[in-house]
């Protein structure tokens, strides 16, 4: 009997040990990048290395904001992601409703979703670039918002259809009998109740837009760069330069991912599998 107990303890101990190792491996880089962004310049070059700065300072963030146009690009990312998020929701919800209630083209949707999931963004960016160039949409917020909105529609629709199907039709029916129009019923009856579901979709499309790189690097110009594009400017001059500003911009760039990972725990598998987090 005690042999099994010892074995059990051992297994349990090893499990915790393994999980601790996993936590260190997967979270260590975040820890390091945050402490690095708070270090003074002399701490980068200290031997033996300084792992946790004694006197944390926000100097690198200030410098990033004032010298590298960081504030502007941070706000760009925020603006573009927020607008695309709302736009994607606004366009996807009626479509999802149409599919959930009337089974409009449901098969088509899943095919489209699958195709888009497989389609490399590089295949889309080349024709889009030429079209945008002709229309004068490069280096514009509008151009980026349009692409992001549309690219995430299938994903948003797919998730929303699920939420709508779980929604009791009877409540909606009552509203319709009272003489509400469909649209009215959708806005004032359905939306409040599936709001949590919509929030999930919104957060996914927000983080996806925030994280997207290829469209951003090709379509943005000096005014409309996003955080993802800003980071690339710190890659020249070798791996040992720009520690301060680069780490500060990485911290700002991963911040939303942390929030979303916690808020969306339950939906992570679905979202990640459907490609709801990157372009």
């Amino acid at each position, binding site marked *: 009997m005690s042999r099994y107990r010892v074995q059990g303890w051992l297994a*349990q101990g090893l499990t915790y040990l*393994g*999980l601790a190792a996993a*936590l260190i491996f*997967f979270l*260590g*880089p*975040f820890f*390091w*990048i945050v402490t*690095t962004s708070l270090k003074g310049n002399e701490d980068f070059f200290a031997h033996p290395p300084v792992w946790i700065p004694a006197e944390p300072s926000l100097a690198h963030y200030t410098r990033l904001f004032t010298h590298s146009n960081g504030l502007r690009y941070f706000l760009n990312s925020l603006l573009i992601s927020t607008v695309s998020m709302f736009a994607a929701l606004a*366009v996807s919800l009626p*479509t999802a409703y149409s*599919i959930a*209630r009337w*089974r*409009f083209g449901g098969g088509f949707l899943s095919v489209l979703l699958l195709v888009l*999931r*497989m389609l*490399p*963004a*590089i*295949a*889309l960016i*080349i*024709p889009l*670039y030429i*079209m945008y160039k002709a229309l004068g949409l490069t280096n514009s917020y509008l151009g980026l918002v349009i692409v992001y*909105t*549309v*690219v995430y*529609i*299938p994903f948003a629709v797919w998730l929303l259809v699920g939420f709508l199907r779980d929604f009791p*039709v*009877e409540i909606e*029916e009552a509203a*319709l009998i009272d003489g509400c129009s*469909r649209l009215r019923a959708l806005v004032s009856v359905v939306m409040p109740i599936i709001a949590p579901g919509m929030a999930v979709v919104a957060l996914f499309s927000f*983080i996806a837009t925030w994280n*997207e*790189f*290829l469209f951003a690097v*090709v379509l943005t110009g000096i005014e409309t760069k996003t955080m993802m594009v800003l980071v*690339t400017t*710190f*890659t020249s001059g*070798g*791996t*040992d330069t720009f520690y301060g500003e*680069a780490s500060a911009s*990485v911290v700002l*760039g*991963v911040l939303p*991912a*942390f929030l979303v*990972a*916690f808020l969306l725990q339950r939906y992570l*598998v679905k979202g*990640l*599998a459907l490609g709801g987090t990157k372009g």
Partner: protein
Amino acid sequence: MFRSAIALKRKQWEPYAFASPSLFLIALVIVFPLAYAFYLSLQNFDLAVGPDYEFVGLSNYTEALFRDGRFWGSVWNTAVIIVPSLTLELLLGLGIALMLNRPIRARPIMTALLAIPPMVSPVMAAMAWRMMFGVKYGAINNLGLQLGLIDVYFDWFATPLISVIAVVLVEVWHNTPFMMLVLLAGLQSIPQELYQAAKADGATPWQSFWYITLPLLKFTMAVGVMIRMIDLTKLFGLIFILTFGGPGGATETVAFNTYLVGFNDFRMSYASALSYLIVIGVLVLTLVFMLVQRRREARAAA
């Protein structure tokens, strides 16, 4: 199918009206450009040379297939990155998922913490790691130096082999948690009764893993592997930051090579042809994978 009259009481135009904004946008921003790209791939549109172009038939495709060593090199590089990444992601992901599936404390919070890396943009992940790989001031070399594991001066991008290892390491860090989440969901859907029955029959933990867990997890694993494989064929941001395709062309993936053709050389037609070849390649790969999977299942059933 639907529970009430509500579905029948619709006006004929309503489904279309509700769906049309997104259909219109998808047609405009996805379907049309893809068609346009195919048209382009049959021309010789070369923005660096000039705005004029003419029809050249399939010559872009034949150039890519028969006269472009760099393209084939990029196909090979992509495979060289995919195979070890997938293997490691699957093994590590399975290991962590099994650990998380044991009766342990604080499981939700641990799962949530471990799930963060795949939520982060590849560009940011790569930048963080690029700095950690820093020769003199990076975390890894400093740690290695303190522990006496590495030489004074170790460059993580010195040779093609080391660079591929570095890229795979970052990729594994970035996406193992995804595999773990998928497998954890799979594990949790296996009925506990099976294990209890096995235990009653005197099966060792190893036996129940081998004869219960693995067979029942196979489908989940296949789905996870397929999703990751498709994603890995698009590997771009990571490469852009970590190595820019180097040293030489050792880590130049198909997506990155196409990007260079499109936005460094501005050979729009040729880049379109390359991207169509990639799409076809991914499609074939997926189909083959599904076919093998299905055949194996059929054999297992028989």
